[in-house]
């Protein structure tokens, strides 16, 4: 009965939006692989991929084609079903998180119809993200376990313990932010960060929660299994990591899921701490530009922030050496969690004694 109430235009609108976001995140992830190699090359005084097309921009297509052409090997000793499920789950969870990110403000057509640039505005947006991101560890765990390879298993154990340790600090750092926003909906959080300057203070959450952002940033590095926290993929110790037995596009899925995750977590960081699609003087721009043009500008602003974060991820990867396992655990449990807890307590105290008088 409820389904009948949903109009056909609504469904079409959402389907278009979902496909655009899916294509967009896949495309950005594709070019993130290219950009990663280019950034690495530039920082090491090299040239990077420049053979496929001008500046090598067709390189991701060539890489994808190569992965598709490779022989698909499923080891005899592996658990076949779980072995295939692993990369599927990794890819699925990577793509699911983008559903709750608001990509732009509501676009009101001339006939008064409101188009929301967000797939689903659920009131537990952040909780949903945390749930899906935690599920993402299952992809790595299942893949490493089903490979029936000691190195893969060790690596997936590392991935799981790392994810559990850093999710704690990540969650606590966000609680401080949520006490300020008093909502879990990403759409409302972005709405609260409207513009850049309001009532004599910055509206963006970064300026209200700098320590929270720092903890969140470090934890998201660890959640993404990226350097300096890429212990599950430490090739000098574990040959290759949890995807050692994988070949062809299943390996591609694992590698690709990492880049999609990077894109989505950049979008979430931009949304939570850097005002999402908000930018300074946006009210004046809204008056000057038409509603359609304004929406496009907002989406572009968000994408610029996302690209900035992705570039930052890459800079850090090609700068810092990998942590040792005990250093990783010490940083997580003995530094980040206490820091996040202290940040939470201070935020609570400030809210109690100043804002709610």
């Amino acid at each position, binding site marked *: 009965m409820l389904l009948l109430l949903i109009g056909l235009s609504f469904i079409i609108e959402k389907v278009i939006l979902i496909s655009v976001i899916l294509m967009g995140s896949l495309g950005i992830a594709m070019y993130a692989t290219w950009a990663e190699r280019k950034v690495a090359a530039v*920082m090491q005084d*090299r*040239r990077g991929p*420049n053979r496929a097309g001008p500046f090598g921009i067709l390189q991701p297509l060539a890489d994808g084609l190569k992965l598709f052409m490779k022989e698909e090997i499923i080891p005899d000793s592996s658990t076949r079903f779980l072995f295939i499920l692993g990369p599927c789950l990794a890819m699925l969870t990577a793509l699911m998180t983008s559903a709750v990110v608001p990509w732009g403000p509501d676009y009101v057509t001339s006939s008064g119809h409101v188009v929301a640039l967000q797939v689903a505005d659920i009131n537990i947006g952040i909780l949903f993200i945390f749930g899906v991101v935690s599920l993402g560890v299952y992809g790595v765990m299942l893949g490493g376990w089903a490979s029936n390879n000691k190195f893969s298993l060790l690596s997936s154990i590392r991935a799981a313990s790392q994810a559990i340790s850093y999710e704690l600090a990540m969650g606590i750092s966000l609680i401080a932010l949520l006490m300020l926003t008093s909502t879990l909906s990403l759409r409302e959080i972005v709405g609260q960060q409207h513009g850049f300057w309001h009532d004599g203070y910055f509206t963006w959450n970064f300026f209200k929660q700098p320590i929270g952002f720092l903890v969140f940033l470090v934890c998201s590095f660890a959640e993404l299994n990226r350097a300096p926290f890429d212990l599950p993929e430490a090739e000098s110790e574990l040959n290759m990591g949890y995807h050692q037995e994988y070949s062809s596009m299943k390996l591609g899925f694992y590698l690709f899921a990492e880049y999609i995750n990077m894109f989505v977590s950049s979008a979430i960081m931009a949304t939570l701490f850097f005002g999402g699609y908000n930018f300074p003087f946006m009210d004046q721009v809204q008056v000057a530009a038409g509603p359609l043009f304004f929406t496009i500008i907002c989406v572009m602003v968000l994408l610029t922030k996302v690209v900035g974060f992705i570039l930052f991820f890459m800079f850090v990867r090609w700068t810092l050496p990998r942590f040792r396992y005990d250093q990783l655990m010490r940083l997580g449990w003995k530094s980040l969690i206490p820091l996040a807890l202290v940040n939470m307590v201070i935020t609570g105290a400030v809210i109690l004694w100043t804002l709610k008088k």
Partner: protein
Amino acid sequence: MEKLTDRSVAVNRSPMTFVERMYLPAIAKGLTITLSHIFKKKATINYPEQKRPFSPVFRGLHVLNRDEEGRERCTACGLCALACPAEAITMEAAERKAGEENLYREEKYAAKYEINMLRCIFCGYCEEACPKDAVYLSETVMPANYDRKGFIYKKEDLLIPHPKKQESK
């Protein structure tokens, strides 16, 4: 013990200060270093399009020389094969027949002349040993090949083009 040089530096083993243990200033420092490399000159070149000049003493692939009239200079004396430390050169001599004066300079010539490029160490002793200035090491890098046979260079592969006939070999 007496110090050999004055370049040794004592390692600082004092415990890390709070700022050092925070690790973030060090990260910022590292990031500025890598960031500065973006604007530095590239160490690599676009190889097949751009090439770096070889040094004047570079020793590359061998050539068998001809004289001004296009006759082969090699007389198959075997001194190059004797001088070769890697034993890469083999040859078979033959006598020049009447009417072949325009092909070979001397009365004896190399009917077969082979250099095994997998054995060759490009030392250039053959070039030094040659009394007829017939074998030279050029500035060409040895190209790759798909099988071992392709690395045994025959006389036709080594001879430089005829100066008058302009045969392209």
